[in-house]
């Protein structure tokens, strides 16, 4: 029984136990389950967020209402054109629908947390400010005053 290259050494190599394989995979699984957040709505507008080095994390993700503004995605451009549109939940809306949208979002929250609601403005970087100003004015009228200009840290896609 020499240590290296013995005639019967092949037989002695113990098989790698695959019993712990499932544990490893489960660990990975739990990691992704914890970090995941399922996409609730389909994106109908292209939103490439602008860069901002000072962007701060939103504390309560569950208390935010998303407003997407941007050009419609490729296959919807034939129907809706390439002008910037507002997307609330799952469909294109106009400024006037924001009031109902905010009211609905408020209703879904508990009484105590309504004042903490943040409106997350996800706006494409090529959009002109006109439409954003209109949305901001409408939000003020609905007294949804906490807003966030969604942006990404430089270097992140």
């Amino acid at each position, binding site marked *: 029984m020499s240590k290296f290259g013995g005639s019967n050494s092949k037989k002695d190599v113990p098989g790698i136990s695959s019993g712990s394989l499932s544990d490893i995979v489960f660990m990975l699984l739990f990691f992704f389950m914890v970090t995941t957040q399922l996409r609730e709505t389909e994106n109908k507008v292209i939103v490439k967020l602008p860069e901002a080095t000072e962007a701060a*994390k939103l504390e309560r993700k569950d208390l935010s209402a998303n407003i997407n503004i941007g050009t419609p995605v490729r296959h919807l451009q034939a129907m809706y054109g390439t002008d910037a549109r507002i997307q609330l939940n799952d469909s294109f809306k106009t400024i006037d629908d924001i009031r109902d949208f905010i009211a609905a979002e408020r209703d879904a929250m508990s009484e105590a947390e309504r004042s903490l609601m943040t409106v997350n403005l996800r706006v494409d970087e*090529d959009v*002109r400010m006109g439409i954003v100003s209109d949305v901001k004015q409408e939000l003020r009228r609905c007294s949804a005053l906490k807003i966030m200009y969604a942006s990404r840290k430089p270097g992140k896609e």
Partner: protein
Amino acid sequence: MAKKKTPEINSSSTADIAFLLLCYFLMTTTMGDQSGLQRRLPPIPDKNQKVEDQKVNRRNIVIVRINSADKLFAGNEAMDIVFLKEKMKEFLANPNNDPNLPEKEEKEIEGKTYMVSKGVISLQNDRGTSYQAYIAVQNELVKAVNELRDEFSMREFGRRFSVLTEDQQNIVKKAVPQNISEAEPKDTGKKK
């Protein structure tokens, strides 16, 4: 004896099941990218209420304007965005008590008095301004305030703002307020 004969459940397929689940979550996952610049909009002024004399002392306000060609003006002079932060820091801090820069008032916060600047940055934009330029300017303004807060924290507590306790952060926030006002669109509205 019957106990011993219970067949073991073959566990070799649990890995496969877990892999399947893993793949599912890998596909559907989107890492949290909810970050941004948080702001508070001013409430709509009451129509019945007389517009009170909101004239802030001239020296206390600086107007930062971005026109439709994304050109930046700060206090009536054209400016490149790289100089904006220093200019705003100088404006808010007013280190030499220049009479043309904002006045300060003594404020008592948690038992100590601090000199708090009364300066307000008024951000105006055109309907044609691109969102990217707007956010870039907003970012510079926030950065100016954040740096001032950091400097203040170093002076007062000897540590950076981000590592202070929550109470200390609140003190700093009051002592170095983030007074950025986003002008009513009517000021900048559709007029060309």
